[in-house]
């Protein structure tokens, strides 16, 4: 005698398998297409040119969200695990400062570390990643060991890391960076770094235990513990990975601007969270995909370029951006519900 979950509802037990069901990412992709098409249409109506058929614009659309995207890849994992990270933007600033300070050329008289100029590019890169990693590690360790809400732990890190970034050179920006370092942020390199990072973590989240643990802890932390997962260790690990990615984002930002500044990355954490959530990651944990986050970031990028393209005043841009964030998430939820019932 078998136990079946679908006796009622007049459904055959297997019907679920055959039902047509779009994955969440495909739904979000539709939103992206929709947004792009609206701009295309308005473009022909009001600007007299195509929005999409413009290679440079397509590049900028992705380029301008590459840094946010790299952060969002880490933030997505944290949110899936049921956490939140408010410190990413500040960590970007701190790593940008540290790595830039090790990437200066010797022909600059006022280098931060006059004896540490003309280093091979690996040095600032490694230092930046390390700083990010340490920040993430601290976030994770504090959250795991003290059980305070991640919101508070990372809020503390947000304030502290920003302070450290300003303190590092007393607010002075760092410039005269080597060409090799600048190359990290030149041309479409940020895009490549972003997409490779996303791809790597897409695979890791879908096909490794690291990924399964992340989803399991987010879906039900007590259950994950009972199933034998070392929840605290995994928590620390994921926050560390996210810190590392914020570090990478910091390196890319400073390489792109060929300068390190303490004001960098301001509010990036919110854009990264927005990208993840627009991309279908649930703030309640347990649900989300890197692919969704990539599309979420692209939606933000398309919007920014689209507004500029339509010559919409900056005020209206902000006003509309807020509304669109909400509408995108509402639309996604609505479709999700419709498909269910």
């Amino acid at each position: 005698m078998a136990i079946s979950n679908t006796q009622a509802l007049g459904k055959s037990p297997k019907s679920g398998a055959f039902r047509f069901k779009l994955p969440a990412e495909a739904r979000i992709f539709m939103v992206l297409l929709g947004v792009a098409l609206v701009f295309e249409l308005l473009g022909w109506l009001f600007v007299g040119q195509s929005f999409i058929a413009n290679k440079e614009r397509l590049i900028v659309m992705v380029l301008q969200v590459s840094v946010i995207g790299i952060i969002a890849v880490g933030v997505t994992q944290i949110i899936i695990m049921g956490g939140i990270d408010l410190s990413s933007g500040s960590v970007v600033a701190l790593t940008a400062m540290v790595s830039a300070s090790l990437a200066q050329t010797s022909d600059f008289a006022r280098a931060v570390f006059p004896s540490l100029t003309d280093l091979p590019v690996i040095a600032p890169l490694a230092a930046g990643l390390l700083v990010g990693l340490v920040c993430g590690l601290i976030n994770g360790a504090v959250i795991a060991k003290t059980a305070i809400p991640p919101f508070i732990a990372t809020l503390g890190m947000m304030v502290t890391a920003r302070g450290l970034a300003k303190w590092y050179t007393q607010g002075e920006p760092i410039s005269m960076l080597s060409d090799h370092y600048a190359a990290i942020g030149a041309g479409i390199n940020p895009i490549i770094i972003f997409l490779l990072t996303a791809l790597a973590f897409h695979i890791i989240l879908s096909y490794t235990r690291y990924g399964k643990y992340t989803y399991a802890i987010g879906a039900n932390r007590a259950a994950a513990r009972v199933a034998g997962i070392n929840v605290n260790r995994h928590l620390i690990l994921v926050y560390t990975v996210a810190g590392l990615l914020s570090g990478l984002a910091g390196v890319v930002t400073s390489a792109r601007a060929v300068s390190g500044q303490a004001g960098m990355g301001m509010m990036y954490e919110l854009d990264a969270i927005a990208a993840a959530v627009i991309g279908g990651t649930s703030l309640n944990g347990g649900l989300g995909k890197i692919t969704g986050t990539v599309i979420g970031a692209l939606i933000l990028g398309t919007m920014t370029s689209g507004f500029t393209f339509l010559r919409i005043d900056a005020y209206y841009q902000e006003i509309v951006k807020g509304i669109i964030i909400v509408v995108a998430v509402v639309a996604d939820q609505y479709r999700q519900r419709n498909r269910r019932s």
Partner: protein
Amino acid sequence: MLSLAPEKPKAAAPSHPPVNSETLLIEVEGVRKAFPGVVALDDVSFRLRAGTVHALMGENGAGKSTLMKILAGVYIPDQGVYRLHGRDIALTSPLDALENGIAMIHQELNLMPFMSIAENIWIRREPLNRFGLIDHARMYQMTRELFAQLAIDLDPEAKVASLSISSRQMVEIARAVSYNSDVLIMDEPTSALTEHEVAHLFRIVRMLREQGKGIIYITHKMNELFEIADEVSVFRDGHFIGCKRVEQLSHDEVIRMMVGREITEMFPKTIVPIGEVALEVEQLTLDGVFHDVSFSVRQGEILGVAGLIGSGRSNVAETLFGVSPASSGQIRINGQAVTVDSPRTAMQHGMAFLTEDRKDTGCFLNLSIQENMQISVLGGDNLKAGFVRQQALDEMCAAMSGTLRVKTPNLEERIENLSGGNQQKVLIGRWLLTNPKILILDEPTRGIDVGAKAEIHKLICKLAGQGVAVIMISSELPEVLGMSDRIMVMHEGRVTGIVDRADATQVSIMTLAAG
């Protein structure tokens, strides 16, 4: 093997049946565990032999789950000796326990809702391919094999969120079995299962016993005890009372050990005069869930609702109470047609609804017992110029928890710290305070010990005597048969029959339930 704990006075001298120590899997002695304000376990000893099913009995809050959580590494005891296969051991985490061959099915479901059945079962033990990546195909295959062995018919790729509670329980069971551990602890595994699944579970349990595993089985259901268990240990108020072979015990003896007094009547049904029709339902339908449900219930009448898991009983109750409003059909209260679009309107019509899932839709876990109990009566007389009349409410709550015998140090205690059964009593109290005319109870005695169960049954009868119309959904057939004036049976979202008390038998109900 040294315990410095002082001897505690005990209600009955603990007695262990003579055992051959070579077959002892687990042995604990002098275990103590205290929570803030409560000593959950005090100088408790327990032994588990290989190849036996060892039942654990005790009232709500006796400390059964706490002891099991200690055995499974979830809690670390304040004090005590723990021996596994004759070796001293100190577990520090659930993982530790699993690695030492101890698996547990918890009283509360512990699944990851958004993950597939297979992912839930093999978490931490996923099969890897040669690139070190997870081999999903093989994982599904392994699940199918496991399900074939246990004769469970679920799609390994289905998300747990889409399963009914009973199916989820079966997934838990399958996962526990999949560990292939020496010791399997089951904490009230059947509280969410109906007869069919219970019988099925017992086959699995017997199979494991044949394989020489030790199984600890916690239940409040007396019949299960005599059907499946070899030995039984009884607990009361955090103390170990005794351990006997089941053959040496009678029904009444077990109860006496548990409660410390006699309970004479199991289903204290009193026949009361039946009044006017209080609630009448016609062709009630919730698209895709249940169809054309029609019935009526009179003042003073208890209408039992029976059916298999997933037959739609809970959905009907939810719709009656406005949690998920009907797509068509009519509800009449005292002859008046009404629209019930939210629980609020339902309450205005004099309804009350005890839901089946107390954790999800019942308790406010981090609020106090008192706040939990009075939340639905914050209006009318209890409100003065917008302010809540706290004193009067507190007195009402104190009286109600007295009546229901809620076991707690005080009413300011968080409900989270109560045992499951006591939480249930608080929720019943919440609804009784609203003085309902129509009381809908969904599995009112799920996870409740025999003593409390009898009290709740008495209370239901008393309410019926006062003219309240009662609808009682239950998966426990003896309860439905013992308590109801009439029994409505559902199958696949439709009513298959309404049977009078006089005509109802186990067989007639089961036949209707099977469709």
